[in-house]
């Protein structure tokens, strides 16, 4: 009588959708670009899958196609992770309230 874990995942999926939905409702337009940028960076969490793919198999088979695709995915995702977060950081630097003269 155990519940299928898929159901749990589904519940989690649905709830996360709601969170995503509500969490950005009140964003100010001037932050649209940084928000997109950070969302983009976050979406490269796909790297988790890529790492699993890349590290799979044993030492001998490490260079089979599936691994290579994994490596490439890691490469791409890594660009994105670093690039995404850092560029967001740069953008947000602009939003720092300028010091007022006096």
């Amino acid at each position, binding site marked *: 009588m155990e519940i299928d*874990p*898929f159901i749990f*995942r589904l519940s*989690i*999926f649905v709830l*996360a*959708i709601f*969170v*995503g*939905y509500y*969490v950005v409702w009140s*964003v*100010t*337009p*001037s*932050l*649209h*670009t940084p928000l997109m940028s950070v969302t*983009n*960076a*976050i*979406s*490269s*969490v*796909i*790297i*988790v*899958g*890529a*790492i*699993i*793919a*890349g*590290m*799979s*198999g*044993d*030492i001998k088979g*490490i260079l*089979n196609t*599936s*691994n290579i695709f*994994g490596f*490439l*995915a*890691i490469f*791409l*995702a*890594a*660009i*994105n992770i*670093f*690039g995404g977060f*850092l560029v967001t*950081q740069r*953008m947000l630097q*602009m*939003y720092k309230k*300028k010091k*007022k003269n006096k």
Partner: protein
Amino acid sequence: MSVNLLAIFYLISGVLFILALRGLSSPETSRRGNLFGMLGMAIAITVTFLAIGNFSIGFVYVLIFFLVGGSIGAIIAYKIPMTAMPELVAGFHSLVGLAAVFVAISAFLNPQVFNLGSPGDIKLSSLIEMSIGASIGAITFSGSIIAFLKLRGIMSGAPITFKGQHYINLFLGLSIIVLIFYLCNTQSESFFWRLISISFLLGLLLIIPIGGADMPVVISMLNSYSGWAAAGIGFTLENTALIITGALVGSSGAILSYIMCKGMNRSFFNVILGGFGSVNSLTVNNKDKKPVKNGNAEDAAYLMKNASSVIIVPGYGMAVAQAQHALKEMADSLKKNGVKVSYAVHPVAGRMPGHMNVLLAEANVPYDEVFEQENINNDFASTDVAFVIGANDVTNPVAKTDPKSPIYGMPILDVEKSKSVLFVKRSLSPGYAGVDNELFYRDNTLMLFADAKKMTEEIVKNLN
């Protein structure tokens, strides 16, 4: 590391991502939000490594690719000029899409690694999930490439539409479904590759017809797609982090594009379906097709709130709109925010001598904030924002440069010397003298197209 612990860590990184998005919704918390995002990502990556725990030669490769990719990313992030932000985001996007495709391919080729069965005998549910993931990933990839090219200017920003495009897209969409169906039935690799290729194509065709002005919406939408792709793959890999994050990114991206559409007064569906109503209404008035930057009240409020000084330049349009009271209120709000506000009144602003003075006095603007041209013209250079409200001729630099212009020789207010210039008017049409104002097309100009009173009221709202 136990699967349970792993799952808890994934949950934690999911929560950190939520906090990241939340943080990004207001300027005060935005930097902290970004840090949360980084932390979440670091946790997700670290625990994944730890969970696999296979620090063999594979790990080395992984690490190399990771570090090389990371360095490239970091370099791009630091080198890119700020003006190229939108296309950069689009470019990054394509990478995520491609990465998703690669992971899906990898899972398809080597399902046993992910406990999905063996090649040719992949669990049905997993197969569906991974093909959806791969397809969306591919669409994201090729779509983002187009968006990137359009924004970069390599491809024309104009919407490229052709007859029957919606039918072709529909057909491609249906093909994808059919292919997934066959793929599930046959588990044949060839269907999988075809699926991916068609998805690539669909991505291209979906984005090509959309005009450059709508690109931000497209990027956000592609963002959303990449989220759904990640979630799809998350289901395949039974990975909570991917599911949570994917759903989060997917839905927030969709909402964000919706919000942006509303902000631009565009129909969400038209934008997403591409090319439907994509004629950019603003470029129509602009005979020479010179681009203008077109902002809204929020942008204006943001710019002025963070300025240390603002000079207001009222003109006939302020009088027509009877915006003087709202303007006074705006100035009051700014002053409360510590911004220095002055008014620059040109001798012939309006339609009668002293026109602006009458109205400013009516709105109780203190006389010592109102300056005549001679006394304030030099201040523009050291001013952050010139807020030009319904004035036009009196700011037109052609008066200094073109002896043939009917306004040649009139001393003008040097608004263009200030860091940013905001122009509140209803259109690009000229003023009394009938001369086009080249300031509208300057880089440091933001046009606020609206009735002066309405726009000012909006700005006041956003200042508070």
